[in-house]
Every structure is written in C-alpha cells, then in structure tokens.
C-alpha cells in the first residue's frame, strides 16, 4: 500500500521540520515497516512551466513548429514541437535539458538534450501529458496535444516545477500489504494519521460521522446477517459523470489508484481515507429500487462487465435488486452495477461484510480487489458512519446541485468494543519497566481506547476499529504500549539462571559425534539433498515408488515421492560430482519416511514413520578396497562416537547393493543398516559410468548411545611382546573369521596384513599374511618359549583351517 503524506496531512498537522525519513523510521519501529520512501517530485526535475511567446512554421517539416519559449532561464529559448495546440501566450509544460521523459509515453526513458530537429535548434521539449507522468492528472484528448496550463485554468508561474503545479510534490511511503494483515485500521490514511498523532503526541482531526436522517426510506433487506452486519443505501440524484477536482485526482494518484470520474473517485477517495470500501450503483439499474443482500443460490450466475457470466456457488454473498444479482458483495461488481457515461443518479452502498466469506469467495474467483483486501481484514460496522459522512460531504462539494432523496440503514449487528482488564503489576513485570498511570492512559487514549484505573487494574475499552480481532486480550494492550515506547528503548535483561541440572543429551551428542567422526576422521563431506527425490534415482536404486509418502503438489511431477532411503539422493550426488572428482566421500544425516503409523506427540495425530538415517558413500575405482574402507569406517564408529558395538552379518540384501558384496549392520540381533557396494545396475541406471561406490546406511535411532565413557584402562605389558609375521596358504573358502577364531585366544594381538591370490599360489588357494604379538605376563619370553608358542599357533592353523606355512 502507498501512503501519501499529503493525504495524511489532511488529518494531522505534522511539524514542518519533520523529515520524511524520520517519519518512515518511526512508523517502521512503532507500527509497520516502511519499505521505501519516494518523492513524487523527483521525476519532475527540470520539467517546468514555460510560456510560448512566438510560434512559426518549420522550414523543413510541415508537422513541426518552431516556438520561442520563456522557461524562466533568463532568455527566450527556441524549441521545435509537433504539438497540435500551440498557442502564443499560453503556459505549457517544458522539459529542459537533463529532464527524463517518455516519447509518446512509451518505451525506455529518454534524457532531454539540446539538439537539432530537421535542421533547427531545439533547446528542450514541449510535452504532452503522457510524456511526463501527467496523464492521470491532465488526461490528453488526443495524441498530439500538449499540456496547456492556461487552457486548463491552472494557476502557475513561468519556471515553476510542474510537480508543484500539479500537486505531485508528495512523499510516498510504501508498505508491504502483508505486514498490515492484522491491522484493518491502517488500510486508510486516517488510521496512519492516528498512529503518527500517537507517536508524535499531536492532535488528530476528528472525522464527521453524521448520517442522513429524516429521509424517505430506500428499500434494503439483509437476508444474510452473519455475513453482512450493516448495509446503508443512499440515493443521490442530479449528479453527472465528470472529472474530479485536481486535488482529489492527485491524492488518488499518489495513493496508488487511478482517477476515473468524480462518482467513482469519491468512493475510492473515501476508501483510501478511512478504509471503508463503498460502491456507487447507477440507481436506474436497480430494478424495483430495492436492494437485497443474500447468499447466492447454487447455479445462479452473475453477468460481468464484459458480458461473461460468473458461476456463483451457495454461500457467495451477492447484492441483488428485485430481479437478479448485481454484484459480488465487497469484491466486484457485475455489468448492471456500473456507472455509465449518462448516469445521473446513484445509489451509494456503504456496508460491512464480514471477513471469512469475503476471503473464501475472493479466493475461489482468484479476485483480489481494493475492497476485498480491506473487508478480508475485518472492518467494524461503525466505520460506515465515517465513510458515509465523508462521501456525502464530497458529493455536496463536487455536485452542489445534487439531492439526497432516500436513505436506509440496516444494522442488525454492531461491532462490540473489546473490554480488557490489565493490571499494573502485569505490565510492570512483562514490560520490565514501570510506566506511570498518566503515560499508560495517554498512550491508550491516543490509540482510541477508553480506560479507567481502579488503583490496581486498568479497565480498557478498545476502539471499534481494533475490535474485530486485533485487540482481544491483555497481551494486546501490552503490545501497544511496548511498541509506542519503542522496542529499541528496552534494555536487554539477563535471563534468570537456575542450577538445577546440567544439559545432558546423549542422543543429541552422539548425533553430532557421528557427523564429526565422518567429516573430521574419515574424510567425508556432508551434503544436504531434498526430501523429494527424482523417480529416476529411486528406480535406479531399485526402491519402489509405491511405498513412498507423496506430496500433493510436488515441485515437479517427477519429484512427488518423499525419500524412503538416502541412497537415491546419494546416487544423484555421485552423478553430480563424478565429473569433477575421481575419488570422494559423501554423507548425509536426514530423515526418511515410510507409510505407517507414528504418534510423536499425541494419539490423535498419526504421522508416517520417520527414520533418522545416516548414509555415506565412498566413490573411486577399486571396488574391493572401497568396500573395506567403508567397513572400516563403520567398525570404528562405535568407539569414536560412544555407543554400543556393532557387528556384521548377511541377513537381508539391500536392494541397491551388489549381488555378493554387502553386509547388514547389526546392533545385537537387530538389523540397523547395511554396507555394500552399490550394484552395477544401480550405478548404470543413475547414469554413473566407470566409477565404483561403496555405501553404508544406518538407522541412528537404533544406536544405543552411552551416557558417558565406558571403556576401562588396561595395564601396559610389563614384559616386552614379540611380534611375528606368518604367511599361510589356505583354501579360497577359508575366511578370516575362521582363522581369527582358531588362534586369537593364543595371542595378545592378531592383525590381518594382506591377502594374495594369483600366480605365486596354487589354484584354489590363497595366501594370507598375518601378524601376531605374543608375550608372557610374568617374564620376558625366551627364544625357546617363542618357538614353542609359534609352533602351537601354526599347528592350530593347520588343524582348524588346513593352513600350510609358506616359506
């Protein structure tokens, strides 16, 4: 919304030395954010009043004239002009060098320079209204007409800036409509004036609110009282369609609307002033001279201005005459309720429509109008008085000959003023400051509250314009007091401290430890991917899209599935990075979703099942190495991140994994995840070529975090350990876990060194190199003891694993 300071000044006298920037700042801090401050005069720089002293023909062009013009620069200037109405002695609009204009009101802005036109020097430009932003104020009759102030009867001086002449020297404060949703009173300049009067402690000029009395009754009937608590109809005769006075057109323009004709302009002006929408019907169109406000019937239609029909639904509030719907209440009119060129009498509707119905209907027809936006916020019925009174004053001013011949006010419900009790103690504590009774009462009075203090409690009665939802409880009163003091004047107060217990959250700490372990120790980069996943990657990873929780309105049709696993997102991330990096590690910790039942807070709420997954990939070229590196990452995870140990076992192959190379991750007997190579098929379908990847996924809700450190100190060996390497030949089918089981009880430490298949070993065999540490707790081992121990180890390997020692 645009707030015109000139408009505001009709209601409050602002000090002359109060800078617009200061007003914008104070409104921002106290009331509503002003996003931009613009001066309407800015764009009129170097555009001034000039007087034509001489007009002669152009030697080289029939359509052009050469004028000598007094532009108030000390000497007459020659200007070439194609205007159709150049008259000697008349004052016109001249753009001097440096001015910015629009040729014929179109295209890109042009900066005026001294130049030659068809061989004749031209100092500047004599302008038409469309070329210098004046079309709304001085609508041109034809394309070649220049602005002739003398003809228009505008009082002005040679050299005077045109902005001043046209009353366009205004300051416009721009406010985002969204930030005004809770303040219906601010949707008119009077409401803004009231705020400024309260902020600067200035008197606010009262509004007239007298409505007609003693007139014949117009026929008005409200059949939907809940949606229309008040309707006034005023019949005004002996009017005509003509232009509004200049001051009104200017203020309407500055406030962001376009002047149309005086009959329509009056309604718009009053709406901009007090925030009360109103509508003028051509009264001859009202069949039966009768207004009925009712809910539309199903199947009923409304004819629009362009003769299209709008299909109404039950519940849409319509304004009808004796025959048919004429308009959608508070939103838009139909063909039959418009002012036409020959309108001579109007029926003025000033009414209150309640917010929910307006919102519903306006949304269904995707129709947001200046009126509907205001009704949507909730207007008080009393505002009708001010709107009607101001409108009738304007009618009398602009149409002194008009007659008000009938009137009706149907007001089944009045907006009740909200009554709120607030104690001084509540204010003191919550504000953190003690305000005087005088301060509180004065501030509230300026905002329209009536208050009475009984020594402990303020009995506040809110004004009607804040009683449609905005003000309903003591916190609202507190808010008004706080904002008018200014939040910037409240000092930061320390938070109260209690030492009841320390913050202890093992699960939260483990979640962080997991991420830090992967990032800092294992060289993984953390990524975030969207929860909606491209079906291509879901299918590549062999997940079903049937099991997914889906979005009703996804960002794109292929993105409707919410993830059930982080693996598809990983595939997408691998695909993105594989062009830039040959080797890399990624991980993501995020939630995945599955159809199911889950009640995080209350039984009445059933959500899909959420799992907290931790998933990573290691990407490179050596598949086997990648797999064991990922295995190492998971093997070491419990001790670094402080949770109960994990083990590995093949239970159920994950759908994304290689046929052979996968293991489930177990916590006790429970499968909580998996590691494995990503299958060739998955990589291929994801478009990833010549690259291998090993992945892990773990459901971290299943990890059992230790409340503290649990490992115990072990004494260091008192006598030296002996380290021996062994190289064994075993059958291919013998596993490391069999070897380890066979001898681990005999040694202090057992380490796998390497495995070898190939030419050096016979077919069906493999060579395993391992390293053991042996020792005696009571003495240093003698070489005899060492040999004896090693022989026993080798014998065990021979017996249990069929191993033979390699030379």
């Amino acid at each position, binding site marked *: 919304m645009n707030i015109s300071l000139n408009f505001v000044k009709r209601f409050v006298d602002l000090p002359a030395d109060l800078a617009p920037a200061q007003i914008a700042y104070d409104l921002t801090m106290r*009331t509503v954010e002003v996003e931009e401050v613009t001066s309407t005069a800015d764009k009129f720089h170097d555009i001034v009043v000039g007087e034509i002293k001489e007009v002669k023909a152009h030697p080289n062009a029939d359509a052009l004239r050469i004028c000598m013009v007094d532009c108030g620069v000390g000497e007459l200037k020659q200007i070439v002009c194609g205007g159709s109405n150049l008259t000697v002695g008349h004052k016109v609009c001249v753009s001097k060098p440096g001015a910015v204009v629009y040729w014929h009101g179109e295209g890109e802005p042009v900066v005026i320079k001294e130049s030659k036109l068809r061989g004749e020097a031209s100092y500047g430009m004599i302008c038409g209204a469309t070329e210098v932003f004046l079309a709304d104020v001085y609508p041109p009759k034809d394309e070649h007409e220049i602005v002739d102030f003398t003809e228009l009867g505008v009082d002005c001086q040679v050299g005077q800036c045109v902005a001043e002449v046209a009353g366009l020297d205004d300051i416009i404060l721009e406010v985002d409509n969204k930030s005004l949703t809770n303040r219906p009173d601010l949707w008119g300049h009077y409401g803004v004036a009231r705020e400024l009067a309260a902020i600067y402690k200035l008197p606010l000029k009262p509004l007239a609110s007298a409505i007609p009395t003693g007139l014949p009754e117009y026929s008005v009937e409200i059949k939907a009282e809940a949606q229309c608590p008040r309707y006034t109809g005023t019949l005004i005769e002996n009017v005509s369609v003509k232009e509004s006075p200049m001051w009104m057109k200017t203020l309407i323009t500055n406030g962001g609307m376009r002047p149309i004709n005086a009959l329509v302009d009056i309604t718009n002006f009053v709406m901009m002033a007090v925030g009360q929408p109103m509508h003028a019907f051509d009264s001859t169109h009202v069949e039966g001279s009768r207004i009925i406000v009712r809910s539309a019937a199903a199947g009923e239609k409304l004819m629009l201005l362009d003769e299209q029909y709008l299909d109404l639904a039950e519940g849409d509030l319509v304004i009808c005459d004796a025959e048919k719907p004429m308009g959608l209440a508070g939103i838009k009119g139909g063909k039959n309720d418009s002012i036409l060129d020959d309108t001579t009498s109007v029926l003025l509707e000033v009414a209150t429509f309640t917010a929910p119905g307006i919102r519903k209907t306006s949304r269904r027809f995707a129709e947001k109008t200046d009126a509907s936006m205001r009704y949507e916020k909730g207007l008080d019925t009393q505002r009708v008085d001010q709107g009607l009174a101001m409108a009738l004053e304007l009618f009398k001013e602009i149409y002194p000959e008009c007659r008000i011949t009938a009137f009706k006010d149907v007001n089944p419900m009045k907006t009740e003023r909200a009554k709120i009790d607030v104690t001084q103690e509540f204010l003191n504590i919550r504000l953190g400051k003690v305000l005087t009774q005088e301060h509180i009462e004065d501030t509230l009075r300026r905002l329209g509250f009536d208050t009475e203090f009984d020594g402990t409690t303020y009995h506040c009665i809110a004004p009607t314009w804040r009683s449609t939802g905005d003000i309903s409880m003591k916190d609202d009163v507190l808010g008004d007091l*706080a904002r008018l003091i200014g939040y910037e004047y409240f000092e930061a107060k320390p938070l109260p401290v209690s030492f009841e217990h320390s*913050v202890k959250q093992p699960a939260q700490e483990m979640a962080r430890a997991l991420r830090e372990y992967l990032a800092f120790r294992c060289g993984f980069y953390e990524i*975030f991917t969207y929860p909606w996943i491209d079906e291509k990657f879901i299918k590549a990873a062999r997940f079903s899209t049937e099991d997914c*929780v889906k979005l*009703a309105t996804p960002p794109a049709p292929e993105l409707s599935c*919410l993830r059930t696993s982080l693996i598809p997102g990983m595939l997408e991330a691998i695909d993105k990075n594989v062009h830039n990096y040959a080797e890399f590690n990624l991980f993501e910790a995020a*939630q995945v979703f599955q159809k199911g039942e889950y009640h995080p807070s209350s039984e009445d709420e059933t959500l899909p099942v959420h799992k907290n997954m931790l998933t990573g990939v290691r990407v490179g070229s050596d598949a086997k190495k990648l797999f064991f590196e990922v295995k190492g990452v998971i093997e070491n995870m419990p001790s670094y991140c402080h949770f109960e140990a994990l083990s590995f076992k093949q239970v159920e192959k994950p759908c994304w994994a290689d046929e052979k190379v996968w293991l489930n991750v177990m916590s006790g007997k429970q499968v909580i995840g998996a590691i494995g190579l990503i299958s060739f098929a998955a990589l291929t379908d994801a478009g990833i070529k010549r690259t291998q990847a090993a992945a892990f996924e773990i459901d971290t809700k299943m990890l059992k975090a230790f409340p503290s450190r649990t490992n115990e100190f072990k004494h260091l060996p008192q006598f030296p350990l002996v380290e021996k390497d062994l190289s064994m030949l075993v059958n291919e089918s013998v596993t490391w876990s069999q070897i380890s089981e066979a001898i681990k009880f005999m040694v202090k430490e057992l380490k796998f060194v390497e495995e070898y298949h190939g030419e050096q070993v016979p077919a069906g065999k493999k060579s395993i190199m391992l390293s053991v540490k042996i020792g005696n707790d009571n003495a240093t081992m003698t070489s005899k003891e060492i040999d004896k121990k090693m022989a026993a180890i080798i014998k065990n390997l021979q017996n249990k694993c069929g191993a033979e020692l390699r030379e």
Partner: protein
Amino acid sequence: MLEKLEKIREAGLAKIAEAADLNALEAVRKDLTGKKSELQEVLKSLGTIEPEQRKTVGQMANVIKNLFAEKIEEREGQLVASTSAVEGEIDLTLPGITVPGGALHPITQMCYDLNDAFRSLGFEIYSEDDISSEKYAFDNLNFPADHPARQSMDTYWIDGTEDKEGCDRLCLRPHLTGGSVRHLLEVGAPARFVYPGRVYRNETTDARHERAFFQYEALIVDKDISFSSGRVMIETILEKVFGRKVNVRMREGFFPFTEPGYEIDMECLLCGGKGCRACNQAGWIEVMPGGVIHPNVLRSAGLDPDVWTGFYTNIGLDRLVMMRYGVDDVRYFHSADLRFLEQFK
C-alpha cells in the same frame, strides 16, 4: 725419520679435513691410526732406529697419533652436525602432502556454533520430525483458519491428506515453531530449548529463495520475565556467529503465535549501517522474527498463560551462513556440489 713423520702428519691432517662424510672419515681413521697405518709402521720400526733418535721419534709419533685422534673426533663432530637425512638437492617449495578432506556442511557448522552458545546458557536441543500435521503446524500456533500459509500454494501437503483438516492433514513442516508445542507438551515449564532444523515451503526458487531451508529457533518459558530478556537470546546468536557484538534493533512485527511480536534487524555488516546494495540502502538487515509467546500457544502446550510467559526467536540459518561467507546463491546449500562444500573445511 723425523722428516717422514712430518710428512705423515701433514698428509694425515689433510685427509681428515677432506673426509666428506662419516663413512669417509671412518676409512681415514683406519688409514691413519690402524694397524697397517704408516704411523704404526714407524712405531713398529723404532727398534731399528739409532738409540739417540729413538726417544725423539717415539715421542713425536705418539704426539701425531693423539693429534690424529683429536682431529678425527673434531671432524666427526662437524660431520654429525652437518649431516642431512636427505641426500642431494631438495625443492622445499613443493606443496605439502594434503590431509584427507572432509567437512561438515556450512549450515551444520553454524548450527553447532549456535548449539554451543545456547547450551552454555542452559538450553537443551530438541529435534522435531520433518512431517507434521495442520494441528501442530498451524492450529496450535494460533494461525487463523483461513490463513494463507495453510494453502497448498505455500505449504507442501502430503498426498491424500490435503483436503482433510487438523491432525489428519499432514505436511512437510513449514516452520519450526510447531515443535515448540510438541516439546513443551513433553517437558512442561519452565523450559528453555533450541530446535534447529529444515523447513519446507512451496516456493519458486531463485538465488534468494529455496523450497527447503534451515531455521534455528530458540524458546524460553518461565514465570514473570520481561520480554526484554528475549533480547539476550538474539544478541547471543549474533555475537556467536560473527565473533563480535552486532548492533540490533527490535521493531514492531506481527506473527500469529506471538503477542507482542517483533522483527529484529541487525546492522548491515557490509556497510556498517550506512546503507548499501546488500541492505537495500537501509543500513539494517531483517534477520529474525521473535516475540512473546501468544497465550493461545501456551494453552495448546497445556500451560496457563496467566502463570507462564516466554519468547521465541527464530533465525534463518541460510541467510546467516550466506552473510558469514558471502555466499550469493542459497541454492548451493542443497547442491551437494563438492566444489562448494570443499570451501568450508
């Protein structure tokens, strides 16, 4: 004979000086003082020398022997001191060998920085689930029934629930605030906690707008506290993030779940408050909304608003991280692009 000894001495000292490394010096030692050395030969032949010369020659040979031992030790000291582990030339300007890469996402880093600050003030960390219901995301938070945020133009509703209402209408949470009621229902009051997380809005994306983005919300509920205490939370956040005190201003703002509500602006760090393009010439950047918990929200959480009060502060992590590093496109955060992520080790 004395002349010969003189020659041995001269030649020997020269050899010691010339020995280029410890191995060469060891060879020189054998050569000069070993059993087959010239000096040893001389000593062995003393018997054949005339008696009057024998004593002089013997004494001189021993002096030379000691001299050699002394000089060899001295040279050995020099060589040890000047020995390098690397033979030959070495280019010390070659780059070092990199430690393996890996990093937390810059959003996570920011989040943990804030967690550290808030935990030091006794706040707990709470995590709400990504999918919520209209009841928790809107109803509990005093959003009017026809608030525009409830529409599918704004919120991602779950397929099949979009036309239902309350508990049965599910969505990807559009903000974190719903989590406040969930946690208050669990822990009651007093309470102070933070609940960082990702939220989702049905929006058109561009360099400044995302469909999935991160917020960080802090809440405190207690008795008889003034909302000016809420400001401490704000200052804590900004001081932690930017490493110094940042000027902030609170001004009037409106949110359904607060009363009163305020907007918090921080001084633009790029221009120091003078006004620049980044702050739209305002000198201030809107960073977080906040406010006193609306009584209806407290009621949703089962708390009596006449007894309890508290404040919210909500901060957009994406924007904060963008300011911290000068990132100019919010979409990088979900890009999974290592060229971006590598910069935040």
